[in-house]
């Protein structure tokens, strides 16, 4: 596809269940970023990948959150034992390179996660 694709677009789950969110970046983009946006809040950085490596995991809010990327392509964000405070829009973005100031981020349309 031409853009960053995220699935599912909406996910409703029960408290305590695990969820997996998927991001397909633009082909050839080495950098991939995950952000969380709670209702009425700004974008909260979670993690980024350079290739398949995650140099900075400091933004992950707890050990219930993990992410991986394979084949320098698709990435999965996993939230274990979901809590109500995990409810948010999870945004994925990709760029050709990491940390280059004349690069721009291409965003997906996000996954709206609702934890009941």
């Amino acid at each position, binding site marked *: 596809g031409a853009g960053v694709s995220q699935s599912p677009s909406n996910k409703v789950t029960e408290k305590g269940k695990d969820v997996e969110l998927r991001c397909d970046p633009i082909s050839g983009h080495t950098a991939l970023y995950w952000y969380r946006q709670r209702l009425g809040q700004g974008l909260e950085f979670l993690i980024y990948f350079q290739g398949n490596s995650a140099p*900075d995991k400091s933004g992950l809010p707890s050990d219930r959150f993990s992410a991986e990327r394979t084949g320098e392509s698709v990435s999965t964000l996993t939230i274990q034992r979901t809590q109500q405070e995990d409810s948010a829009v999870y945004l994925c973005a990709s760029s050709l390179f990491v940390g280059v*100031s004349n690069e721009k981020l291409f965003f997906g349309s996000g996954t709206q996660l609702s934890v009941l």
Partner: protein
Amino acid sequence: AQRVTQPEKLLSVFKGAPVELKCNYSYSGSPELFWYVQYSRQRLQLLLRHISRESIKGFTADLNKGETSFHLKKPFAQEEDSAMYYCALLGYGQNFVFGPGTRLSVLP
């Protein structure tokens, strides 16, 4: 510490009026700053970056290191400018730090 603040959650102006969306940052070193915009039912997208010194859709932003600001300006607002605007900083960890956003509403 690296941080981006946008003091206004909502800014309303009339069509044709000047608009200024405020952004302040804290960062040790030479900052790289950006404005991203999200129009209704569209994805977040880059509007402009300070390194390019560009004007996009009539918007400009000047980096003021003394005031640690990167305010977004347009002399004559249009209704189609109504959107959510985010200021962002390329941080130490090579990640992008975003501000909380300002919703601009341009009234007819």
